[in-house]
């Protein structure tokens, strides 16, 4: 019989299983911050390993690291800067989508801001590639749009 997570002195942990079959432990209080996980716990009980089909072993530890810091109230601007420092744009995107799937609001908002910061002065072509979006404007339409937006096209970083 699954127990309700009440105020216990020993920290209760939840087991999470990624889409590629790995299992990670997370504290119940941290799991509460991920609404998707919490819903699954409500449905399945907290003694069962919770399956997360859309999150993989590459991302989940990083997400767990974030929420470990969150429950102790230690998330600072410095921590967040450090957290994303070594991630490239694609890795951040994967984390962002995972945070969305997990309905982990705080991380999601932070990563939304971080992606926006990374894209702020990137070219339109880079942004298209990044989101996998096709340019469906005709050359005439595109050149008209660019002309209207001329002042916003100066000062763009060169694509790497």
């Amino acid at each position, binding site marked *: 019989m699954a127990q309700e997570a009440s105020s216990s002195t020993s920290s209760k942990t939840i087991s999470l299983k990624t*889409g590629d079959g790995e299992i990670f432990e997370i504290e119940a209080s941290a799991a509460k911050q991920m609404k*998707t996980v919490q*819903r*699954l716990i409500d449905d*399945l009980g907290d003694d*069962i390993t919770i*399956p*997360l*089909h*859309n999150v993989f072993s590459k991302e989940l530890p990083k997400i767990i690291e974030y929420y470990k810091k969150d429950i102790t109230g230690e998330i600072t601007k410095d921590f967040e800067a450090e957290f994303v420092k070594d991630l490239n744009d694609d890795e951040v995107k*994967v984390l*962002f*989508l*995972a945070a*969305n*799937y997990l*309905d982990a609001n705080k991380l*999601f*908002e932070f990563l*939304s*801001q971080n*992606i*926006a*910061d990374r*894209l*702020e*002065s990137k070219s*339109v072509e880079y*942004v*298209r590639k990044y*989101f*996998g*979006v*096709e*340019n*469906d*404007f005709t050359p005439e339409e*595109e050149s008209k*749009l*660019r002309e*209207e*937006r001329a*002042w*916003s*096209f*100066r*000062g*763009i970083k060169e694509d790497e």
Partner: protein
Amino acid sequence: MADETSWISHYDDDTRKETQDIDSLSEPGEEVDKDGTVISLDIMTDDLLDRILAYLPVESIFRASSVSKRWFSIVTSESFSWNPSNSPPQKPWYFMFTSSDEPTGCAYDPNLRKWYCIELPFIGTSNWIISSSYGLVCFMDSSRVLYMCNPITKRCKKLQEPYGLRFSDYGALAMSVDKESHSYILAIVKSKQVPENFSQWDISIHVYKSEEETWATPLTEVLIGWRGGEESVICNGVLYFLVYFTGGVPSESRHALVAYNVSGRASQASLRRSFISVPCSLTCGRLMNMKEKLVMVGGIGKHDRPDIIKGIGIWVLHDRKWEEIVRMPHKYFQGFGEFDEVFASSGKDDLIYIQSYGSPALLTFDMKVKQWKWSQKCPVTKRFPLQLFSGFCFEPRLKIAP
């Protein structure tokens, strides 16, 4: 716990495809589209894109609207909420005319501390009377031609002028946009000297409603010894304008403020009876709407030499009384040059811009944190000694059209 659906991973770019709108998640991990196929949730839906775009500054969002047709419609859609509540609100921009005979100027973004060279499509000279509200800017030139425009998208519309406006000596312009409906009110205060009687002025107030596309003239009055000028603003449904003493009758002060209710139908007592005195001898008085409170910026004139100022002050009007908010500290005041230098000021929300006519130096005052700050240096330099600079404050909004 048995899981009957199969999951398709779309992490790989090659398999990514355009999506239809997906409803909000009800069942974790599973969505079914119109065809009944199960789709994975790790693709960038409109909703997710929306959230990222909301954190971008104006420059990037404007550029982003040229990424694809879908992005264009997201950025310009009514439901796109730019600037989510947990990031600080965008401060308004300042447009500075950099030439008196060409339609060019630079717009300052105080959020990024960056200048952009923006061209206003129709402008012939910089000699306009300007009013702005919620992303729209209205221009009135000396022949009383009126344009309504969005300086960011450059959409522009010529407006019909009220009858008889050309025959006025002074005209002041004010506007107010309704944030919900995007409809607006324009008010023009016209002052014309009565021929043969130089101390008498014919004052008329003309009001335009964009929804009806018509002008009305709810008030005309003759003032003796006082006239309107070019300074007016609408705050909270009330039209405020500065009036100037022209002599012919005794008066202690040379300036006063008039309040006129443009929103209600209640008929008002005469303008002369609704004069509100100004806090001191004033030069370069400018009125602005700061979160629906009337704020005035002006030079504090010396008692014996009112054309020489001993400081620049900022006041807010509470009902009919002024409260002094701050005086410009001496070090900034000196940055403007001579004490009798003409300056202009303009502001919105919590930010006031003060600019000296003689240079492109731009000073800001943040009402919320009570902080003075010079803007990033304007890329334009003074080309000849008598060159004048002026400008106006506006909110950069992509979605509103004239």
